């Protein structure tokens, strides 16, 4: 069951139209697409009570491919393109098929992993460690660990491992740009010249914000605006502002720091 289209050069099911276009029997440039879409929308409006979703999605797919093909034809510089490149609908499908096959292969490999792991689990390694008399030779493992490190380790160690509950993969995440974070950091009012990373990110609610803020800090460090230090392995980051007064933060003319930061971060290389 497919939607039949009617145009000056072609009349029939839309899939057939796609096929004819793909096999060069009909030139997509001769097909006005707007009336096709309008017509379909009209049909949809009429059937509002009982929309056939299969038909709807099929139409959307085919229409999208046709629009892509047509827009490519209309764009300059594509004349020399390979014929194959124009068959974007088929290419996409082949790619999809290749991807599906590859995923099947990895799924089968995963089964083998399980079997290997089960086999390996039948052997238990010796992990007993040194005999009692030898421990004295080993270095002090607590060197450099502070009580605060220990407290943090306790919180980490006793925290329930996060269990993802809701799959949000289909939700578009608001992007936070490093450039914005740089500007925000510059404008943060500060009474003291030094602060810590944890206090800077205390107000952040998502991980990405924290990470972006961190990248922004690195950026500021690169620009010589802050000095960063980490006393020891498990420690917090110490941040020293090298300029007590934000120099460009409120400047309207010239090249503000924010703009400069934005420019640099677009080509962010770490």
């Amino acid at each position: 069951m497919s939607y039949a289209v009617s145009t000056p050069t072609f009349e029939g099911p839309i899939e057939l139209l796609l096929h004819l276009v793909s096999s060069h029997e009909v030139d997509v440039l001769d097909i006005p697409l707007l009336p096709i879409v309008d017509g379909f929308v009209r049909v949809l409006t009429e059937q509002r009570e009982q929309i056939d979703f299969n038909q709807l999605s099929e139409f959307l797919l085919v229409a999208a491919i046709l629009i892509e093909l047509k827009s490519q034809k209309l764009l300059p510089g594509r004349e020399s393109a390979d014929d194959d490149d124009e068959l974007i609908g088929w290419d996409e499908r082949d790619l999809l098929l290749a991807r599906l096959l590859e995923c099947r292969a990895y799924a089968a490999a995963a089964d083998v992993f399980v079997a290997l792991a089960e086999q390996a689990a039948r052997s238990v390694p010796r992990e007993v460690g040194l005999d009692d008399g030898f421990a004295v030779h080993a270095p002090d493992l607590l060197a450099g660990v502070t009580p605060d490190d220990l407290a943090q380790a306790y919180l980490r160690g006793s925290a329930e491992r996060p269990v993802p509950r809701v799959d949000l993969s289909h939700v578009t995440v608001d992007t936070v740009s490093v450039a914005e974070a740089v500007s925000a950091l510059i404008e943060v009012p500060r009474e003291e010249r030094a602060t810590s990373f944890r206090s800077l990110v205390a107000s952040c609610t998502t991980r990405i914000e924290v990470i972006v803020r961190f990248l922004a800090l690195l950026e500021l460090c690169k620009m010589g605006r802050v000095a960063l230090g980490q006393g020891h392995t498990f420690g917090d980051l110490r941040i020293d502002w090298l300029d007590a007064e934000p120099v460009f933060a409120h400047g309207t003319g010239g090249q503000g720091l924010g703009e400069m930061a934005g420019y640099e971060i677009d080509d962010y290389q770490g």
Partner: protein
Amino acid sequence: MENDELARAIEAVLLVAVEPVLPGLLAELLEEPAERVEDTLTVLANQYLDERRGFVLARIAGGARLQTHPDLAPYVERFANRDVSHRLSTAALETLAIVAYRQPVSRGQISSLRGVNVDGVTRLLEQRGYIEVVGRADGPGQPALYGTTDLFLERLGLNSLEQLPPVEDFLPGPEVAGELEMDLQAALGVDGPAGSDDV
């Protein structure tokens, strides 16, 4: 060092090690050429098998370690409370397989292959210590590239990644490929590939 003494010293070191010991480290400790150490490891491994000992000398992630003979799993399991609660989900396993075969690979690459967001899964695998960041890709943001860890090899009982069966072995045969293609056509609601004339 005499052969016999070398074997004894290696045995003793393996007994106190808590993770696979690299032959290079043994060679350094015992001041013997690496080849002799390798040979001795092989001799010991065969000896344990021939004598039907309750343990074996296994080669894991490039190193050597003593572990119980798989035959005796029923007894050992009763004794050692092994941690088996951490079964990985199908999604995690498939992602792990992709990392194992395509490493170094970025999250974006895995994600476009699997067709879903894999941030949570890679994070879990990283937490478990099966994968780790092994480098950075060029390009914007320099995305992290992941590879598998020694722990991964250890869990699978492998000495190196080369021991993994080639991924080509797992590619579906032509019948399955044909079926998939048909499903795909049905799903997309279009006819067969260009070139067929059955319109």
